[in-house]
């Protein structure tokens, strides 16, 4: 029963996330960019833009320059989460890939980085008056959800444990469209349930910042407005304006 509920939940969540994010990305990619609005420091070449975006994604460069505390917590959280996620590959492949073996011990530790980062961000959201002012309930709930996921995972890793062999068999089964048995472990159910919720709300929430980053014209455009003619489709179809100065307006 539980196994089936979670199986359905995961299939639905996966479809909603993949389709939802896909649709949003297509929307972003196909929405025209009428003007060159790149913001300084702006690279003049495509290579420069790639390097800029690389620094944004890997180093969170702009955030580093603008707010060190947010940067520290955001960096701990995101990189912690990435490595924890990489470690999770071991539950989805029959033979654990060699590089997953390598990151696994670090991944187990990085759960704490993730938690520290999240709690730091949350503390700022509660205690820093400017950030408290701009926060909506959803902003707190998002952090609660992520803390819940990280916390329940860490619990299973370090305290309560769970029948991980059985979990892995269940996941491998789901990937082959076979619904096996899942351990009736409340912490595991909480963990997986919250992950499913996160996947479902991904395309309709601020989590879209992840793909959205790559569609921000202020960062992704090349600063070559004088050299390259840039025009959007709808602007090309605007009614033409007269060449030369109309006689009656001539200011001579």
């Amino acid at each position: 029963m539980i196994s089936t509920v979670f199986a359905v939940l995961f299939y639905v969540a996966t479809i909603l996330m993949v389709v939802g994010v896909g649709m949003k990305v297509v929307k972003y990619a196909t929405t025209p960019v009428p003007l060159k609005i790149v913001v300084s420091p702006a690279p003049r070449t495509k290579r420069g833009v790639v390097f800029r975006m690389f620094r944004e994604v890997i180093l969170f460069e702009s955030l580093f320059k603008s707010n060190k505390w947010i940067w520290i917590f955001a960096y701990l959280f995101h990189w912690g989460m990435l490595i924890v996620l990489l470690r999770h590959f071991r539950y989805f492949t029959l033979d654990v890939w060699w590089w997953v073996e390598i990151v696994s011990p670090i991944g187990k530790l990085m759960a704490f980085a993730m938690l520290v980062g999240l709690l730091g961000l949350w503390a700022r959201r509660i205690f820093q008056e400017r950030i408290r002012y701009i926060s909506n309930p959803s902003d707190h709930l998002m952090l609660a959800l992520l803390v819940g996921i990280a916390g329940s995972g860490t619990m299973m890793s370090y305290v309560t444990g769970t029948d991980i062999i059985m979990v892995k068999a269940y996941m491998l089964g789901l990937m082959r469209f076979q619904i096996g048995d899942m351990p009736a472990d409340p912490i595991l159910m909480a963990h997986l349930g919250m992950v499913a919720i996160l996947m479902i709300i991904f395309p309709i929430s601020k989590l879209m910042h992840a793909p959205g980053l790559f569609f921000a014209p202020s960062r992704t455009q090349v600063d070559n407005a004088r050299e390259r003619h840039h025009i959007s489709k709808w602007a090309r179809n605007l009614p033409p304006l007269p060449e030369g100065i109309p006689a009656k307006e001539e200011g001579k």
Partner: protein
Amino acid sequence: MASLDMNAEGGPKFVGDPLKIPAIECGAMMDTNTFAAAPEHNEPLGFPGELLDNWQEVAIAKMGELAKKNRAFQVYLDTCVKCGACTDKCHYFLGTGDPKNMPVARQDLLRSVYRRYYTFAGKYFPWLVGARDLTKEVLDEWYTYYHQCSQCRRCAVACPYGIDTAEISMAAREILDSVGVGQKYCNEIIAKLKKTGNNLGLNPKALRATLEDLEEDLEDETGVAVKLPLDVEGADILLITPSADFFAEPHIDGLLGYAKVFHAAGVSWTISSYASEAANFGMFIGSYENMREVSWRIRQAAKDLGVKRIVFGECGHAWRVGYSFLNTLAGPFDFLDQNYPIPQHIMEFTSDALDDGILKIDKSRNDEFVMTYHDSCNVARGSAMGRKEGGQFDLPRKVIKAVCNNYYDMERDTIRENTFCCGGGGGLLTDDLMDLRIKGASPRMTAMKQVTADHGVTHMAAICAICKTQFSKVMPKYGYEMDNVMSVHQLVANAVILDGQETTDAE
């Protein structure tokens, strides 16, 4: 030199750190409103004269339309995570403490409505994501706070996702215009430009008389017949400069500087009475169509006069439009000389002239000034100059240092890409917003006071007509004189020695 009264009469309190973050004070600026446009200001721009009966419907539809037409608007509405990195970046927030002047809060005024009508969460769980209905109160709030944003983009540099509040603010103003709620200052000026070719409504006759007066002044000063040509067909260069350069101080001195540089370089140039305005207020109101129409005049004038090159004078927003948008709005310019950037900034021209050794300079003629430089926000963050990245920061400094002996930069976090707006940009340079302008200038003024205290800086140079007007108005509130702001080409004009110039020291 300016007296250093840190708490000059009537002025805001001195703050020691230009980046000092105030405690938030809700509603501090809620009653600061700019005058609304009358029907005769709105209609020539293609907007309804007065608030439409079905304004709510039209505004919501317009929002959807803009999200479809402009990726930036769509993506920026979706991707904000409310991290708070931008909250202390806006000069209006730093100067007023009003939380709605924090960039993210300013965006949220519109984002909350967008969420209500265009997102799943906002439609079904508005309380969860702070979504709200578009009521008349919300519309009024938009009018208030989107006219407390100078679209300077300092927040966009700070944002980890590159979210640019200027894009949101421009969209908000366009939505307001589309339902008949325009701002008098911007819309009146655009209407004027469409009639006369410049923001002042200066007709060709008056313009010619002004230029002739200036020629006389130049000849009196130098003994050399330096020309300020108007509507000369077949000239090589068309100068597009803000109309403030024709009448306001210290703008005029900058114009005289361009004239001297052109004269010394021996190029033929002209001003056009048809396109006698560099500033493009169409950008302030976020209207692509109006911005295009204003820009198009430059193309028409260039074609009509048969020039080979276009050079822009010192004007910040004009240069953003010139550098970043002109090719899009009025290009491609295949009828101009492709060996030069189209358009070119006067700073690039002067910098090249200095490199080529064309200009004879006597730096000591600026020895009475100890200079600093205010990077005008739209030049700094929305444009570039020269061939190297960062040229928009380096070229003006290079030119200043080439003509002045005494130069010091202000604090690093207040210059270059982190520069503050002067407090009057983006369509806010109107007397009805003077309180906001004075408060918004406070971070810049504080940074200047530091270099005054540390290095004895007396004057600040800028390359934007709005910066110059704004500072000459607000500097006295901070213990400086109104002429402590200067044009960069004013310094050039002081130092350059023309062939045949009588060099008996004027002092």
